[in-house]
């Protein structure tokens, strides 16, 4: 994703200057005004710092990455967990009977109005709009996960 590409760029840029200015605050101050943050920076900074330290091949304590307030990247597992969680919260679905391949209309006994409500809940959860033409074809949790993975470019 874009955040990972930027991290690679910063890593490659910062390597020669690592010895010179071992302070990440300088970099952060430089890029902070240029970035529009939507999430609290502290939360993103913590998660990013721990992941960065685990991934980096530079053996230093300094964290050299842009602290964007971005969400952690999606994986198929996380998408599936979130979709199932939202579906379990819906009151017309029985959580015990819910499987990944259960069809909304045939297995779970919902109708098209309920399916519309479910797709709206998915839109709220993942934060992007799903157009009507494609929304009415999504009839099981598996299809929803596939569709979101397509739209968000999540490959595994």
């Amino acid at each position: 994703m874009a955040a990972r590409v930027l991290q690679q760029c910063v890593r490659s840029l910062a390597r020669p200057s690592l010895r010179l200015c071992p302070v990440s605050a300088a970099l952060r101050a430089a890029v902070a005004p240029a970035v529009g943050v939507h999430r609290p920076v502290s939360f993103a900074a913590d998660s990013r710092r721990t992941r960065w330290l685990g991934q980096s091949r530079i053996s230093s304590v300094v964290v050299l990455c842009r602290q964007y307030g971005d969400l952690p990247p999606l994986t198929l597992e996380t998408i599936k967990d979130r979709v199932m969680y939202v579906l379990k919260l819906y009151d017309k679905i029985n959580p015990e009977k819910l499987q990944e391949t259960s069809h909304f209309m045939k297995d779970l006994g919902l109708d098209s109005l309920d399916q519309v409500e479910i797709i709206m809940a998915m839109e709220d959860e993942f934060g992007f709009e799903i157009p009507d033409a494609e929304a009415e074809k999504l009839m099981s949790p598996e299809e929803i996960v596939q569709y979101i993975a397509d739209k968000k470019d999540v490959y595994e």
Partner: protein
Amino acid sequence: MTASTRSAVLSLYTRVFRIARAWQAQTGVMSDTETERRYIVQEARSLFRQNQQLTDQESIKRCIEECEARIEIGLHYRNPYPRAMYLPPMGLATQRGRRLRAQQRLRKQAKPIYLQSHDDT
């Protein structure tokens, strides 16, 4: 119910939900905004379920028009509640004899399209 009316009805349903998601109350008070959002969602759910079983093309079209009218009026006046209407002439006369049928006819005629699904008075 043809495929076109089905897709029209479902797109109206999504449209109402999208409006409810981004609704702001006219008063500016946060609790009013929440109340009105919940009202819009609950009203849409109940009215759509109530009219779900209709099979007559005429009445389906009337319900679609009712939905569109309520959306337009609600967006224009920034008020999701149904717009009040006046009683027709002789609307509250007592139920006696000949006046009853004329009264009912007048009332049905005077009922605007956006109140079709409501059964009061």
